[in-house]
């Protein structure tokens, strides 16, 4: 029997579990017209059924994998040929990858799974991107609101800067004294750096670099989750343009010679919408029609499994 093994990479909350839950729900529903359908059931599906239940109830996913289940196996079938194959998806908590960024370590079991995978899919939550905001960028944004506050930068400690001297005298009511060069003053107090302060794109690049140290990446599906939220606020956006705009460092990292790394970007709305704001719409439709997948230029795809279908060479 053919087995395809894919590893879903992604930070906590990146949408991996919701995707799996939606995929399992759609396949079990049986009404969708995709190329891939559910095959004969085999073995344990307890975890898949539990997350599917949460998905059907419009509730947040329980992300922690039970201790007795480490590998999810979805029995699938090609509708046209009746060929059976198993999609094995090790459910690896995003905390593994977050911790790997911080500690530079991965459990050997995770390493083995990454090394043996037939394909990798990197999940990114569209609403959990932390961007690198420089202080000058933050101040420029403020400058637009309160221009007078930043109209002129005066170096009050510069003995050669007459404006600085006058400003200091005016402030203290006394003649300015020579002072040490402002450049040589110790840096003002700031919050010390911690790993979790790093921008999302930096962490994701590092994760892919870890994976690349284990095996050539070759093919990578980049799945942007909660895609419905993106197009709700920016109609006409596409997964490719979103990635280039929101995560430019990661986008660059992926722009290699296709012979070295072939990647494709997808947008996925596994929930189908916001459980609170869109409940009426979601509850009134067949579960099989809730989740949607989109290609790099925003065209809706036939089936949710499309990002994984593309992975094998």
């Amino acid at each position, binding site marked *: 029997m053919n087995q395809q093994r894919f590893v879903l990479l992604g930070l906590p909350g990146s949408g991996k579990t919701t995707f799996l839950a939606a995929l399992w729900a759609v396949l079990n529903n049986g009404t969708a017209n995709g190329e891939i359908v559910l095959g004969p059931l085999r073995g344990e599906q307890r975890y898949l059924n539990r997350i599917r239940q949460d998905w059907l109830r419009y509730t947040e996913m329980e992300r922690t994998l039970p201790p007795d289940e480490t590998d999810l196996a979805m029995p699938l079938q090609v509708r046209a040929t009746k060929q059976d194959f198993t999609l094995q998806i090790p459910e690896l908590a995003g905390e593994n990858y977050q911790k790997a960024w911080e500690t530079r370590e991965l459990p050997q079991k995770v390493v083995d799974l990454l090394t043996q995978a037939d394909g990798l899919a990197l999940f990114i939550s569209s609403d959990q991107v932390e961007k*690198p905001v420089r202080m000058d960028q933050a101040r420029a944004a403020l400058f637009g609101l309160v221009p007078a506050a930043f109209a002129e930068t005066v170096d009050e400690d510069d003995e*050669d800067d007459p404006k600085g001297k006058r400003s200091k005298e005016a402030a203290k009511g006394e003649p300015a004294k020579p002072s040490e060069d402002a450049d040589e003053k110790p840096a003002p107090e700031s919050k010390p750096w911690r790993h979790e302060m790093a921008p999302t794109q930096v962490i994701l690049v*590092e994760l892919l670099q*870890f994976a690349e140290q284990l095996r050539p990446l070759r093919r990578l599906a980049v799945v942007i989750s909660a895609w419905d939220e993106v197009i709700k606020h920016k109609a006409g956006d596409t997964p490719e343009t979103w990635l280039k705009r929101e995560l430019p*460092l990661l986008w660059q990292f992926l*722009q290699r010679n296709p012979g070295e790394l072939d990647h494709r970007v997808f947008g996925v709305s596994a929930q189908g919408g916001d459980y609170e704001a869109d409940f009426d719409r979601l509850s009134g439709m067949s579960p099989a029609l809730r989740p949607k997948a989109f290609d790099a230029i925003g065209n809706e795809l036939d089936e949710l499994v499309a990002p994984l279908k593309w992975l094998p060479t």
Partner: protein
Amino acid sequence: MADETPPGTEPELMEFPFGDDLIVDEASAVMSSGPCRFLVVAGAPRCGKTTLLNGIYELFQEGPVGNLVFGGSRTLVGFEKRCHPSREISEAERPDTDRTKLLEEGRFLHLRFYQSDCAEQARHLVMSDIDGEFFKRMRDNVDECKRHPFLRRADRLLVLVDGRKLARPRRRHEALEDAKSLLRSLLDSGMIDPCTAIHVVITKWDYAHNVSVGTQAMVDFVRDSFWPILAGRPYKWTVECVASRPADGSAFAFGHGIPALLPVWLLENPREREEQFVFGGTGRREMERFGRRAVTT
């Protein structure tokens, strides 16, 4: 992921290397792994060495720099730590760069690039980030230069001059003569290969750009000042200006000067002249072989 190891035992872990600064041996390994350019960034304390390196990295955070596309880094943690004091998340009063730690051996940062309009393989860029106090020692003692073999391997030597001090009459000549003395010491030590290209880089250009010295524009003044140091020596050299992190309200964009200079620093091979002489041609294999070299002699 579930932990299946028995209670009381630690799960087996695989450790990934690098992340923070590279030491000399690690930098050497990177440089041996493919086409590479090695920049030594030299200058007095607080003249803007680390800020320049941060500027390069931060520009790539926003997108390609010209036709240069970010292809990875083995020192992402090192860059992030350095950029942190200038990020909003640090909650500092003003953007700053931490003083480079005074260590007994050099530290290096790494970036990997592709060219967007060329299908060739990636190139590595290794850059030194060394405390200004080290360079003060080198300035004051030629023998100190000889303690750092990595100097011999530099493709480009960037000698930074603090533009903010150049803009101030009281500090101008001190800053200039400091930089000139450092360069003279480095050159007289014999540690700078004749094929190394030298760049006199005026940092904090937002302060100095509209300052004249007598009737001379600042760039011409600096060029004329360095001329006696370099006259009669075989080095190719230029004077350049950057404003890696312009002051608030400045008309200069963040990283001013870097997009124009980075392709030159990265793509042009200053050693091509020697290869033409030594190998009798510029065959790619010879250039690649020469590019794969250790940092240490």
